[in-house]
């Protein structure tokens, strides 16, 4: 595919804000130090950035053109070349990655940010659904995820105990992640003793509501080698989307993840670690299966989306965490995954290498 023939591009800097349940700072205010840190870690100057792409959602903050305010954290004077996607920052990374392949600039900034705390996600998210049948029903992400988990349980693809084990492992892994929100050691039997939140999901199967932001700096091969001691190479990047209506597909599978993984080259060599946006515990099983990640692959050492879920940044955070596993953790090959829509409707997969 085109992705494997593309010019070499590397991640040279990354930074994240903590994941807050309710941030006191505004989005541009908390993005400000994040973007500055990513630039500093990349060893470049702000003016070296040739292209900027942001991912955010005005519905979350409840402010039209909120994404324009976020540019104040980037510095847009003298005028810069920039773009925005109403999507997770991982898709901003995709646009920046495509933009660098034009060859006329050598450094790009991608960032994602969101504050979910001011609004009610269960009321906002149905607005992205089919407006005739599902929006009026108030089909919120938790309800749709519960239908997905129910289908998996009914088909024997997972058990409630295995879901709790995924949640417990994620929270335990997150204790080492200074940006995480839900951390600690939890007993699986104790988790299973909880009442259902939305059957068959218990609270531990759900992601937290989070505010936060993530920034990534990428560069062409020549520039990356010049400024960075350990560039993290993006060997493949692909995203695929499925039908909007969740009733039209098998929710226990994810063809789009499988295709994106194949096109990104996940199976071409051994994977050491994967950072997956499994916002609900059972989704980790679907993603592992579709990406062909066996028991020897470390999954979500950061704790993943179950530990910190800043909407519009959580997917890009998977790239930051996967890159960190290589640049700081000595791993050789990592997979990063981001998702959008309901019940894994759209999926983006990247393969990163030392």
């Amino acid at each position, binding site marked *: 595919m085109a992705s494997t023939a593309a010019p070499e591009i590397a991640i040279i800097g990354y930074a994240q804000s903590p994941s807050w349940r309710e941030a006191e*700072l505004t989005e541009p205010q908390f993005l400000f130090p994040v973007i500055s840190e990513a630039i500093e870690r990349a060893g470049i100057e*702000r003016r070296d950035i040739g292209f900027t792409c942001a991912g955010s959602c005005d519905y979350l903050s409840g402010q039209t053109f909120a994404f324009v305010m976020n540019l*104040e*954290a980037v*510095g847009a*004077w003298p005028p810069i070349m920039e773009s925005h996607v109403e999507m997770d920052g991982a898709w901003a990374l995709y646009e920046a990655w495509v933009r660098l392949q034009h060859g006329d600039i050598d450094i790009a900034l991608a960032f994602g940010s969101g504050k979910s705390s001011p*609004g*009610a996600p269960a009321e*906002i998210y149905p607005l992205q659904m089919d407006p005739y049948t599902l929006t009026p029903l108030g089909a919120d992400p938790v309800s749709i995820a519960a239908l997905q988990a129910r289908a998996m349980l009914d088909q024997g693809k997972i058990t409630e105990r295995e879901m709790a084990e995924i949640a417990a492992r994620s929270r335990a892994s997150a204790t080492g992640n200074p940006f995480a929100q839900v951390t600690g050691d939890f007993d699986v039997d104790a988790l299973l003793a909880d009442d259902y939140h939305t059957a068959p999901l218990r609270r531990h199967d759900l992601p937290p509501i989070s505010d936060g932001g993530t920034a990534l700096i990428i560069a062409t091969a020549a520039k990356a080698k010049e400024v960075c001691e350990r560039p993290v190479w993006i060997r493949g990047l692909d995203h695929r989307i499925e039908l909007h209506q969740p009733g039209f597909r098998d929710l226990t599978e994810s063809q789009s993840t499988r295709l994106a993984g194949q096109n990104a080259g996940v199976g071409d060599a051994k994977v050491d670690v994967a950072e997956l946006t499994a916002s609900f515990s059972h989704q980790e099983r679907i993603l592992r299966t579709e990406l062909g990640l066996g028991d020897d692959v470390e999954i979500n050492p950061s704790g993943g989306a179950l530990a910190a879920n800043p909407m519009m940044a959580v997917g890009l955070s998977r790239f930051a965490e996967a890159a960190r596993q290589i640049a700081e953790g000595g791993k050789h090959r990592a997979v990063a995954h981001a998702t959008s829509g309901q019940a894994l409707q759209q999926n983006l997969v990247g393969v990163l290498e030392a």
Partner: protein
Amino acid sequence: MSKDAAADAHAERPPADGVSPSAGSEASVVGMDYFMHLEYRELICPVVRRYSAALLEGRLIGHKCPKCGLVYAPPRGYCPIDVIETTDADEVTLANAGVVTNFTVVTPVQYYGQEETEPFAKVSIQLDEPGGSLSLQDVIDCPVDEVRVGMRVEAVWAPKKERDVSEITNRSWGSAEGSIRGWKPTGEPDVPADQVMQAGF
């Protein structure tokens, strides 16, 4: 579509009697009203809290960028031009008078929720030293057709007991609503319009 036409279109909708009209006929097009309501509640960030507290005292405050000298009102906690953070140490008390740099006369359309009935002006004001600018301000004691670029104005504060900052949010950059009732002409000679039209901040 006029209000009456909209009402007529509404009336043409088929009755909800469970009988499907034949496909392709005009009556087969069914409209559906869907009313949505989203409520947002957010913490007010520290610099805006401080700005609100100053309004209750009858003061406008801003941050003066230590590098370029531009004044931001209310303070943002950073200068987006120089991309540096600003702090309480950069706080300045702003002037109560300034000059209109541009304006818009709004002719209200009576959509749902519109409370205005007569044309009104919203103006941007470049404040006197140490500077700073406020946008979307109300003018009072001045007919709409006399509002002009270069006009000198001063703040009309609400009496202390009546000041209310409950409408000030993180997103209301430049608003002094609830504390400053509006800006009235000072009667001083105008500043030449071409000197202020380019004022961005």
